[in-house]
C-alpha cells in the first residue's frame, strides 16, 4: 500500500535477475549457434529462408515492435498521468491495420529482402535504392540511439550496472545474434522475447487484478480515491488539436514505414502467411498494451506515485516496482531479465534491417549495379552488422544523459514521411516515376528532420534549454516573494476578524498579485519560442512527401514505368513470379 515504503531491490545487483538473464543469453546463443549452421545463402541471412510461419512471424513482429520503452514507459506514463498514458498507447497500435490493408501483401509479392526492392521494382534501380537506403539507415540509426540510451539507463536502474557496460553488453550480444545467426536467430530471439514479455505481463496483471477481486471497476475506483477523477480523464497530453493529429499521423503511418518491421514480411513463404502474421501481431500488440495500461493503473494504486517517481522521475520503474510488491524478489528478477531481453531483441532487429539496407541496397544495388555474388553480399552484410553495432555502442555512450525521447518521435516522423509515401505510391499508382520516388523520399526525410529540429521538442527543450531555465528562474524570483507576502497576509485573516478588515487584507492580496503580474509577463516574454509550432512534424512532412512525389511524377511522366506497372500488378495481386 502507498503509505508503507517498501524496501526495493531495484538498482542493486539482483542475483535472480542475473540468473534469469544468463539463462536467456545462453539459450539465445545456443539458438544462434544452431541458426548459424543453417545460414548459408542471402535468403537465409536476410529472410530466414522464407520458412517462418504466419503465427511465428506474428510473434516475431510483436517482438520487434514491443520495445522496453513501451513496456516500461507506457506503464510509467499511465501510473503518473493516468488516462493520458492510455491515449498514447492507442496510437502505437493503429498503424498495424494499415500495414495489413495496404502494405503487407504487395510487399511480400513484389519484394525480395528490403522495401527498396518494392519501390524500385519498375523504376530506375540505383537512385531509388540510394534514397531508400538513406531513409532506412536514418530511421534505424535514430531508433538505435534511442533504444541504446534507454537500455543503458534502464539496465543501470534495474541491475545497478554502469551505463557503459550495459550498452557494451547489449551491443555485443546484438552483434553476435545478427552476425552469426542472421534472420533465423533474430526471428527466434524475437519469438522468445515476445513470449516471455507477454507471459510476464499477463502474470503481473493477474496478480494485480487479484488485489481488486478481478474487477477493473474496483481498480479504477481506488485510483480515483487516491488521485481524484482527473486521473481517469484526458488531461494535458493533448493541448492543440493539430498537434494531436500530427503525432497521430506519424505514429500510424510511421509504423508502416519502419524498415525492420517491413523486412519481416520477406521471411514468410507467401501472402497468406504474410496477412496471417499481421493479424497475430496486431492481436498480441493490442493485448500487450491493454496489459501495460493495467499495470500502470495497478502500480499507481498498489505502489503509489510518490515511490514510483522517487525512483525514476519518468515513472519507468512502475512495472518493476509493482512486480516486486506483488511477486517479491523472484518475480522482479524475472521481469528485469525480460526487460533486458526486450531491448536486445529490438536492437537486433534494427541492426539486421540496417545491415540489409547497407549491403542489399547500397553495396549490391548502387555500387555493384546488381552484380555481386551471394557470398559477397552476405559478407558485406556481416561487415555492416559489426559496423552498425559498434556505431550504436559509441553513439549510445555519446548520448549518455541526453534527453533522447525526441529521437523516437523523429524515427516515426521520418518513417511516415520518407519511407511510407514512396512505398505506397509505388504499389498503388501507375504514374509514379523515378524522380517522383527519389524526391518524395528525400523531401520526407529533410522536411521531417528540419521541422523537428525547429519544433518545441528540440528547439526549446534542448537547443535553448538554458534560456528556458533562466526564464523559469526569473519568474520564480518574482513569484516567490509575492507568494510569501500573500501567505503572510492570509495568516492575518484570523477567525473573528471583522468583515471590513478581511476585505482590506483581501485587497492587499489582490494588489500584491496584480503588482507581480506584469513583471511575470515581462519575464515570460523572454521565453524562447519554437520556430515551428508543432511537437511532431508528421502532418507537414507527410504532406510534403506525397505532394512532391505526385508533382514530380506528373511533370515528367515515365511511359516505360507506366507500361511495366501492368506486369507489376500481375505479381502484386496474384503473386506471379513472386520470390519463393
Amino acid at each position, binding site marked *: 500500500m502507498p503509505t508503507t515504503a517498501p524496501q526495493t531491490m531495484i538498482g542493486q545487483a539482483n542475483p535472480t535477475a542475473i540468473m534469469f538473464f544468463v539463462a536467456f543469453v545462453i539459450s539465445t546463443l545456443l539458438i544462434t549457434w544452431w541458426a548459424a549452421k543453417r545460414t548459408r545463402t542471402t535468403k537465409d541471412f536476410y529472410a530466414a529462408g522464407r520458412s517462418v510461419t504466419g503465427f511465428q512471424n506474428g510473434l516475431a513482429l510483436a517482438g520487434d515492435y514491443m520495445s522496453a520503452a513501451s513496456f516500461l514507459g507506457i506503464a510509467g506514463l499511465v501510473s503518473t498521468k493516468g*488516462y493520458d498514458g*492510455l*491515449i498514447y*498507447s*492507442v*496510437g502505437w*497500435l*493503429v498503424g*498495424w*491495420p*494499415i500495414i*495489413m*490493408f*495496404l502494405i503487407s501483401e504487395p510487399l511480400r509479392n513484389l519484394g525480395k529482402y528490403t522495401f527498396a526492392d518494392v519501390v524500385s521494382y519498375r523504376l530506375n534501380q540505383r537512385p531509388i535504392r540510394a534514397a531508400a537506403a538513406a531513409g532506412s539507415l536514418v530511421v534505424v540509426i535514430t531508433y538505435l540511439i534511442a533504444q541504446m540510451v534507454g537500455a543503458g539507463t534502464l539496465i543501470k536502474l534495474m541491475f545497478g550496472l554502469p551505463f557503459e557496460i550495459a550498452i557494451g553488453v547489449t551491443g555485443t550480444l546484438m552483434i553476435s545474434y545478427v552476425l552469426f545467426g542472421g534472420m533465423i536467430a533474430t526471428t527466434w530471439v524475437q519469438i522468445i522475447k515476445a513470449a516471455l514479455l507477454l507471459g510476464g505481463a499477463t502474470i503481473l496483471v493477474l496478480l494485480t487484478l487479484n488485489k481488486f477481486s478481478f474487477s*477493473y*471497476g474496483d481498480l*479504477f*475506483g481506488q*485510483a*480515483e*480515491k487516491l488521485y481524484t*477523477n482527473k486521473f*481517469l*480523464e*484526458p488531461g494535458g497530453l*493533448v493541448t*492543440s*488539436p493539430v498537434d*494531436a*493529429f500530427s503525432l*497521430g499521423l506519424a505514429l*500510424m503511418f510511421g509504423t508502416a514505414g519502419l524498415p525492420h518491421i517491413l523486412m519481416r514480411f520477406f521471411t514468410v513463404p507467401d501472402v*497468406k502467411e504474410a*496477412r*496471417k502474421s*499481421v*493479424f497475430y501481431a*496486431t*492481436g498480441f500488440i*493490442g493485448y500487450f*498494451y*491493454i496489459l501495460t495500461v493495467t499495470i500502470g493503473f495497478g502500480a499507481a494504486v498498489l505502489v503509489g506515485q510518490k515511490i514510483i517517481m522517487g525512483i525514476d522521475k519518468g515513472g519507468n520503474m512502475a512495472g518493476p516496482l509493482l512486480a516486486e510488491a506483488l511477486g517479491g524478489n523472484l518475480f522482479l528478477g524475472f521481469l528485469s531479465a525480460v526487460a533486458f531481453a526486450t531491448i536486445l531483441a529490438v536492437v537486433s532487429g534494427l541492426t539486421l534491417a540496417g545491415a540489409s539496407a547497407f549491403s542489399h541496397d547500397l553495396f549490391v544495388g548502387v555500387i555493384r549495379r546488381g552484380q555481386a555474388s551471394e557470398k559477397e553480399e552476405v559478407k558485406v552484410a556481416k561487415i555492416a552488422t559489426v559496423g552498425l553495432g559498434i556505431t550504436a555502442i559509441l553513439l549510445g555512450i555519446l548520448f549518455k544523459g541526453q534527453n533522447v525521447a525526441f529521437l523516437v518521435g523523429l524515427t516515426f516522423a521520418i518513417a511516415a514521411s520518407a519511407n511510407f509515401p514512396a512505398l505506397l505510391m509505388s504499389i*498503388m499508382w501507375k504514374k509514379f516515376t523515378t524522380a517522383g520516388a527519389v524526391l518524395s523520399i528525400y523531401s520526407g526525410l529533410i522536411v521531417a528532420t528540419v521541422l523537428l529540429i525547429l519544433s518545441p521538442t528540440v528547439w526549446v527543450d534542448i537547443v535553448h534549454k538554458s534560456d528556458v531555465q533562466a526564464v523559469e528562474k526569473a519568474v520564480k524570483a518574482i513569484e516567490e516573494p509575492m507568494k510569501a507576502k500573500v501567505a503572510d497576509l492570509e495568516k492575518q485573516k484570523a477567525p473573528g476578524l471583522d468583515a471590513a478588515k478581511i476585505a482590506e487584507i483581501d485587497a492587499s492580496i489582490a494588489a500584491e498579485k496584480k503588482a507581480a503580474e506584469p513583471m511575470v509577463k515581462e519575464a515570460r516574454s523572454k521565453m524562447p519560442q519554437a520556430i515551428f509550432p508543432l511537437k511532431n512534424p508528421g502532418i507537414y512532412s507527410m504532406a510534403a512527401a506525397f505532394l512532391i512525389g505526385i508533382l514530380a511524377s506528373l511533370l515528367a511522366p515515365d511511359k516505360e514505368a507506366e507500361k511495366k506497372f*501492368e*506486369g507489376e*500488378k*500481375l505479381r502484386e*495481386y*496474384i*503473386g*506471379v513470379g513472386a520470390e519463393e
Partner: protein
Amino acid sequence: MSSKKTAREIIEDPDFKALVSKKNTFSIILTILELVLYFGFVGLIAYNKPFLAQKLSAGGATTIGIPIAVMTIMISWVLTAVYIFWANASYDNDVKKLKDKMGG
C-alpha cells in the same frame, strides 16, 4: 476449357481487372474505417474532453473514455480479422481461378 492464357492476356482479362479493383476497394474501405476510428478518438480528445470524462455509471469511477480507448484497440484488431476472412473466402479463390487460366 479453352487454351491457357499468357501473362499479357491475363492483364487484359476482365476477371483480373475486376480482382484488382475489388481488392483495392476493399483495402481502401477498411483503411478509411481505421482512420475514422482512430482520428475520431483523437478528435474526441481534442474537441470534447468532457464527453470522455463522463462516468460510465452513477457512483462508479470508470469514465466512458476508458472503454472507448480499449475498444479502439480491439476494433482495430477486429478489422484485421475482417480482412483475413474476406481474403481467405473471396480473394484467394479469385486468385486461384486466374492462376488456373494461366496454367499455374
